[in-house]
């Protein structure tokens, strides 16, 4: 989704500033999810965690697992060969 963003997307994901950010590029599955989970566990409900994930397996798997744990993905941005996602702790 390079630079282009629809109005709907803008409305749905205003620029939320994360409380904590972790860069998991180069971290393999399932350790990237484990690290995300540990980070979320240490946070307060309602806080936002930013996670940077590689394309391919990490982006295929980690968001699914975050959803299954009951948290909310509030923003997703593709940046070249990786993704920057924002997760709200629920």
């Amino acid at each position, binding site marked *: *989704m390079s630079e*282009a963003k*629809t109005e709907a997307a803008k409305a749905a994901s205003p620029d939320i500033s994360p409380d904590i950010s972790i860069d998991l590029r180069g971290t393999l599955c399932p350790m990237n999810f484990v690290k995300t989970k540990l980070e979320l566990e240490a946070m307060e409900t309602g806080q936002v965690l930013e996670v940077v994930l590689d394309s391919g397996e990490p982006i295929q798997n980690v968001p699914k697992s975050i959803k*299954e744990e009951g948290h*909310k*993905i509030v923003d*997703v941005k*593709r940046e070249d060969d990786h993704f920057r996602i924002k997760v709200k702790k629920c």
Partner: protein
Amino acid sequence: MDRFIEDKTTKVKVDYEGAEHKVDFNDLKTGGFIKQRQKDLFTVRLRCPGGRMPTDKLVEVSKLAHKYSKKGVVHFSFRQSLEILYVDYREFTPLVKELEAIGMKVASCGPRVRVPTACGGCEYNPNGLTDTQGLARMVDEKFFGTPTHHKFKISFSGCPIDCARTRGMDLGFQGLVEPEWEEPTCTGCTICSEACKEDAIESDPDTGKPIFSPDKCIYCGDCIRACPTGAWRAKRYGHTIRVGGKHGRHPIDAEEVATFVPDEKIPDVIEKTVEWYMAKGIRGERIGTTLARVGVEDLKKALEPVIGEIAAPEKERT
């Protein structure tokens, strides 16, 4: 180890509840007692539908295996059941009694519906779309031991990964889900196109929204699970039904006879398929051979009243 030593005895006298009987080792197989190479020793195959066992039962089975196996070993069969090896036939009676006391049944071999196999399914496997374990229990209760022309193996896979190898079964059920997409909640994040391993979803270069190719979709549900906003949803769940597969010396790939068949139709599908096999097949012939001889259309016709009208998956996105 001498690979060529084999005891050829097939009949022995045995004292059973005070009376002397002749036991024919070949008859024993129907009850899940399989003759080993070694004199007087047998493998006792237990019944573990879907390869699942409560831990308290497992503890008790372990104790019995330890007591009755002359070598103190068990083997996990290729169809997920536990086998106690090296059991002396003279101890069958007490072993079966003790197994019954803990609610453990002995499986069967021979020409009948076998113990069903299944993956974890939707109960605990993240990929699972159907309740394979529940269905395996149902088959075990309703159909286990039904006489057929030859062995009849049923399996359940919860998703298109097909761990339960439904293509190699006499009757296999594989779970699937049809996805549908709703524009209003889609943010164009492109995760679904990343999550789809089949290249069935492309992202629009301007909006990031999905362009779906149903012909490439294998109905695994990865897009639904990956979508952060719920724009991809499950339209319906069901099973692809495969008939006539087998392994062995001459493997056959099963034929697909129906798709998106809902859970509640499964018992009738099994009943009708076995009925068709008994009517059209001949003794000693696997259902795959019957299908090749009679034609898959004949079975499909027989299944029509059971399955009824099931809409084909949507092939075009308007």
